[in-house]
């Protein structure tokens, strides 16, 4: 049996290397061709002829065809990563990352979902695995059947009807409104004094009992917060009994005496009855000197009181009383003497 020399083998190897075969194919093809050559040598062909025929059969085109065929067949299983990293360093790490990405994501998803579910199921599992210990139970309550006797229904007392308070007699009285003449309603005259004598004012006429018990409205609550506010009222609002400067009849006391002498008339009835004495008339001199609220405090009757009031009301305006320079109302009591001559 004839064998190829190492030199020939090396030559063949070089030839294959120059053709650019892949490393996976190289040793096999070398073996194959060597076998082929040996076979032919064995058949009795001269070495030169064998080499020549082999060279003809294994020309670069055939080798290229083989390479491509090989690559294409194997590439069917190649993924995108294999193509991307075909001529790159696969050991660097990116290739491994890419290759295992799918698996990693799948694993991560399963683990994540698992943990998530475990989180919810853990109390349930714990409750199942851990059998309740007798000692853990502090006490036990035995349930007894309770006889329920029907309750006696006590008759509910009828509600005491409280007598409605008697309606106070009211007379309709409304606050006045300022409106044009044509709009003023005619049928709403203010209550007369006679009507109000035994009644209260109200929103409507109610024919109730005429008792004179007035309900005093509760005093308004003191002003909220801010302490006491001292309100300075105008001086004229107050009616003083004595002022720094007393009101005075215009013209002085002499003029006043003349006025009385001239206007005061002795009532007939008093004169006939021989009544004489003093009538005390109280009146108020307002800030503008007018005589107001004249009334007798103490009288002697027989028309003398009325006469005194009449004269007092007849008086011309007085000089108003003054308090620290400001005119004030002053209440004045004046004795008027009725004396028979």
């Amino acid at each position: 049996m004839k064998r190829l020399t190492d030199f020939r083998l090396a030559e063949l190897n070089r030839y294959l290397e120059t053709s650019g075969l892949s490393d996976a194919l190289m040793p096999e093809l070398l073996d194959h061709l060597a076998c082929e050559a040996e076979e032919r040598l064995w058949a009795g062909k001269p070495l030169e002829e064998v080499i020549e025929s082999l060279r003809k059969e294994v020309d670069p085109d055939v080798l290229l065809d083989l390479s491509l065929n090989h690559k294409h067949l194997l590439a069917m299983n190649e993924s995108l990563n294999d193509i991307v990293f075909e001529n790159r360093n696969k050991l660097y790490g990116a290739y491994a990352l890419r290759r295992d990405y799918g698996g990693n994501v799948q694993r991560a998803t399963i683990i994540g979902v698992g943990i998530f579910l475990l989180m919810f199921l853990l109390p349930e599992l714990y409750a199942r695995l851990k059998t309740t210990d007798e000692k853990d139970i502090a006490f036990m309550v035995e349930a007894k059947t309770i006889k329920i006797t029907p309750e006696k229904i006590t008759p509910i007392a009828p509600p005491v009807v409280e007598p409605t308070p008697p309606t106070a007699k009211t007379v309709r009285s409304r606050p006045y409104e300022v409106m044009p003449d044509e709009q003023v309603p005619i049928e709403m005259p203010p209550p007369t004094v006679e009507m109000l004598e035994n009644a209260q004012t109200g929103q409507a006429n109610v024919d109730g009992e005429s008792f004179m018990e007035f309900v005093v409205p509760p005093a308004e609550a003191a002003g909220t917060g801010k302490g006491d506010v001292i309100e300075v009222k105008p001086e004229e609002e107050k009616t003083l009994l004595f002022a720094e400067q007393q009101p005075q009849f215009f013209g002085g006391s002499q003029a006043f005496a003349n006025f009385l002498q001239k206007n005061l008339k002795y009532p007939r009835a008093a004169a006939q009855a021989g009544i004489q004495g003093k009538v005390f008339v109280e009146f108020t001199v307002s800030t503008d000197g007018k005589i107001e609220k004249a009334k007798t405090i103490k009288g002697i009757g027989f028309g003398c009181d009325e006469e005194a009031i009449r004269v007092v009301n007849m008086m011309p305006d007085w000089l108003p009383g003054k308090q620290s320079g400001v005119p004030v109302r002053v209440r004045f009591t004046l004795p008027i003497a009725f004396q028979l001559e």
Partner: protein
Amino acid sequence: MEKSTSNEYVRGTLKTIVLNLLSDCDRMYGYEITQQVTERTAGEINLTFGALYPVLHKLEQEGLLVTESEAVDGRMRKYYSLTTQGTETARTKTSDLERFMEAMKLLLSPPGEATPSLVPKGN
């Protein structure tokens, strides 16, 4: 011309041929396979190394074959043998090819002769 047409048919059945050969023998190397094919078919079918080796590598990649390398006469020789999966695949592929060849026979034979052989099969 004749050779190229035979190659055309061989290409589709090459996997089956290789698997079938390997199921008969324990292990084989590339050149041995080509020699076996030539021998068995009496030179009718000649496998070229250009067609054989890519297929061998492909089958290895698919896990049907395992390889072992041995140094013989100062060069590496790669032996191929079937895995269990490869044995199964060899069986199915062979039976598939046989059925295909039956069908081809029916297809290529004249219609008159084809019918009787088809009838017993149908029953």
